[in-house]
């Protein structure tokens, strides 16, 4: 049989760098791709029609509402505090500088458990209110946490530190000269903040905010506990109540679109103005001491944030836990499991992030592919990735029992969080001028040696930040762990969720507090390290 020779495809020359990225990108992107493909080819049938006609608008509006309110609250918590902490002196400044990051250690769902209990009609707040006023529970209106504003409040408390961190870095890096020039032109501190500092720091603030919002959009634990029907919760429901994984995957597609939209906005904002890093070093910005009254106001404001986002909820949990007694709970095993998973996951994610970032510096193709994959993974909530992983499993005919499930879980973690690690790494890498690499080459260092001896150490501050953020995020991860963990393998997050959704808050407090405690040390490390890095950059 005569066959025409197929025209030769233009051979796509893949450099080793591009190949590496492609492999990394596939590793990161496979679960999302699997989930989305199933969503597209798997028929949604009646359930899909039902959801589109009755639920979809509600889910979408709830998600957008939560995102909008969370944005406002995150900015309110993060930006003024970062501004005052980086450029002014007031009572307690050196404590707030690092303490304001602490809420990063507490997962959103843990804050939701604690705040729901505090705000409950029988909880301490309303009881005290009734005792003081003598009113009965029917005589007054009290805000409910089981609402969109309630969920937004909780998410903002849990996630504002991302924006606080980026805003603080940006304010600290503001050239002193710019500020002094503005002051010499007669601008008041408020005007400097609005007209000079805020526009200059906007890209950084947006970056932090975008991170917080993507986490908010992907949140399942807090939203389901508070009964807010977001897309994320909808995905769970489509799957569990309607038994339609394909429908769940379609809803996930919408969520990923929203998250990509957020990323796009962030990139746009970044493109419009970046703080130019000059070769010369900054002088230590001398912090202006605030007047007594304004100092007091700022101190009270920062204290309030810390109380709301961390001290109140955590001490409430400690109180419940002490009141009911710790009991016979075997928590060390889940604790150990959580740590193991988070370590393994962040190691893999870190490796992938380094691969993506380094190879994206080699060529444009790698840059696009790497970004896309990492972005998609981060945008997809854990549940979608777990869904994708299960699809992959069922296609390949593998079983999730046994240690293979752990490998899977670590993979899903990495797929989900590589972007969170790649961002700070990328920033750190771009800070190093090209001449460093050339200098190293002239001193005989080959590509690998340059990576190990120059690029990585120079990026170290960013790398450390990246790996700590990865670790803490994985410690808090709930939905994917819930679905993919092997037999007899519970993490703290899973236990906290199981107890809390079983209406046993007292039992949930211990694992909740243990996650927070486990996250606290790395978060403090991160905080100190970033604070020090800020000082040393400002020094000299």
């Amino acid at each position, binding site marked *: 049989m005569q066959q025409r020779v197929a025209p030769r495809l233009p051979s796509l020359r893949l450099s080793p760098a591009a190949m590496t990225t492609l492999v990394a990108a596939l590793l990161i992107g496979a679960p999302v791709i699997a989930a989305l493909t199933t969503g597209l080819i798997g028929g949604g049938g009646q359930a899909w029609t039902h959801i589109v006609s009755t639920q979809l608008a509600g889910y979408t509006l709830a998600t957008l509402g939560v995102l909008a309110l969370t944005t406002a609250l995150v900015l309110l918590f993060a930006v003024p505090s970062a501004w005052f902490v980086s450029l002014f002196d007031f009572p307690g400044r050196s404590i707030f500088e690092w303490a304001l990051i602490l809420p990063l250690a507490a997962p959103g769902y843990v804050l939701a458990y604690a705040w729901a209990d505090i705000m409950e009609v029988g909880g301490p707040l309303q009881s005290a209110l009734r005792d003081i006023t003598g009113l009965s*529970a*029917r005589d007054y209106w009290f805000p409910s946490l089981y609402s969109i504003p309630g969920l937004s409040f909780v998410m903002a408390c849990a996630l504002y530190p991302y924006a606080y961190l980026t805003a603080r870095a940006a304010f600290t890096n503001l050239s002193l000269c710019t500020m002094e020039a503005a002051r010499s032109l007669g601008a008041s501190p408020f005007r400097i903040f609005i007209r000079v500092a805020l526009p200059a720091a906007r890209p950084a603030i947006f970056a932090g905010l975008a991170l917080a919002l993507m986490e908010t959009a992907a949140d399942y634990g807090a939203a389901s506990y508070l009964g807010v029907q977001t897309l994320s919760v909808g995905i769970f429901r489509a799957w569990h109540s309607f*038994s339609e994984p394909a429908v769940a995957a379609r809803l996930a597609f919408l969520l990923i679109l929203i998250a990509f939209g957020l990323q796009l906005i962030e990139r746009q904002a970044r493109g419009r103005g970046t703080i130019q890093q000059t070769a010369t070093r900054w002088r230590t910005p001398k912090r202006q001491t605030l007047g007594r009254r304004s100092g007091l106001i700022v101190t009270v404001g920062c204290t309030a944030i810390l109380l709301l986002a961390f001290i109140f909820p955590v001490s409430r949990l400690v109180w*419940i836990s002490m*009141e*009911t007694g710790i009991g016979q709970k075997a928590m060390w095993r889940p604790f150990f499991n959580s740590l*193991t998973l988070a370590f393994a996951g962040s190691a893999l994610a870190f490796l992938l992030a380094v691969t993506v970032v380094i190879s994206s510096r080699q060529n444009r193709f790698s840059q696009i592919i790497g970004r896309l994959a990492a972005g998609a993974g981060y945008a997809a909530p854990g549940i979608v990735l777990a869904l994708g992983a299960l699809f992959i499993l*069922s296609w390949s005919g593998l079983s999730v*029992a*046994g240690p293979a499930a752990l490998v899977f879980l670590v993979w899903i973690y990495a797929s989900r969080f590589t972007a969170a690690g790649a961002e700070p790494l990328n920033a750190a890498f771009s800070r190093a001028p090209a001449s460093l690499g050339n200098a190293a080459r002239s001193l005989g260092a080959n590509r690998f040696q340059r990576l190990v001896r120059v690029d990585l150490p120079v990026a170290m501050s960013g790398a450390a930040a990246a790996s700590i953020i990865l670790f803490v995020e994985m410690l808090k991860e709930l939905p994917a762990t819930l679905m993919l963990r092997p037999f007899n393998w519970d993490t703290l997050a899973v236990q906290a969720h199981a107890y809390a959704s079983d209406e046993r808050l007292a039992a949930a407090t211990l694992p909740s507090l243990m996650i927070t405690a486990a996250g606290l040390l790395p978060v403090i490390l991160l905080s100190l390290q970033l604070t020090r890095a800020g000082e040393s950059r400002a020094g000299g």
Partner: protein
Amino acid sequence: MSHTLLKISICAAAGLVAACSPSTPSSSKSASENSAEKAAIAPGSNGTLRVYSARHYDSDRLMYEAFEDQTGIRVLYREASANQLLETMKAEGESTPADLIIASDAGALWRFEDAGLTQALPEGEFEERIPERLLDDERQWVGLARRVRGIAYDPERISADQVDHWKDLSDPALEGEICVRSSTNIYNLSLMGEMIERWGQEEAQAWAEGVVNNMARQPQGGDTDQIEAVAAGLCGVAITNHYYWVRMAESSSAAASDAANSTELVFPDFGEGTSPHVNITGVALAGPSQNTDLALEFIEFLLSPEGQARLVTETKEIPVNPDAKRPQGLERIPQIGESNTRLSAFGEHQSQAQRTFDDAGWN
């Protein structure tokens, strides 16, 4: 405790994920671990049983360990919500590792049966020890413990005869008095299932509408939250499963026990001569499982007086084996008899129940 600690230290020493995963076929049966548990028959020496459980109780773990010690059958468990286990099993298909499924609420067990994920239970002695109603007609699952849905009310506002029938709740006299959780919850769905079974669709629909009109607030939170709302005076009537009330009353937290004790618990019936809504926690045999003998042995254990006690001490459910010791706190609540409603009715009417709630505006 030292037992657990020793296990942890072994894990820590090994420092390997695989070594810590009991589901690893060989490595976990290391000599050191066996010697640590030499007091009993080494778990796993007589096979391994994999349980998907929708319960999350520390006492369950002790229960599994007791069974392991007695029989040498290792029990591996995975705990998640019933829906999640269901979907996981669907995704896993024939290759599912599950042997047994334990879930609370007959409606939840019915979902596994409906999805074709169960098989008929083998015959055994356990059948003699329990009321006939608790074994599914098709033998697809069997009840292990009872749970009763009832009403906690504020005796200062409401009298007992205002809430002794379920129909009373739709009476306009209770306007602004009812606190209840969301209708998507399986407990409410099964309750509605029984109403549809007993009263028919129309009456059930009218009831749901009446309750919605009487609600003190939009449904939110869980059953415990409703009891607390009654205690705080926000409403006069809360729909709750009995064990939530018992746990609160037994709690070491003074605030919680005070709250429960300021309310009264009743179990309304569905009309003269009927019984309250008695539901179950039950067990089913996973369809693809080959370990029928081991599974039977475990079910026998669960329905033995010892297994029953272990099953309900922490949960405060009511044992189904009359010889079993009742958990502490149950003496605080009214005694109930057996219901005569088919348990499978709860599941069969599930989707209709959800529609009924949706139509009534009960979110």
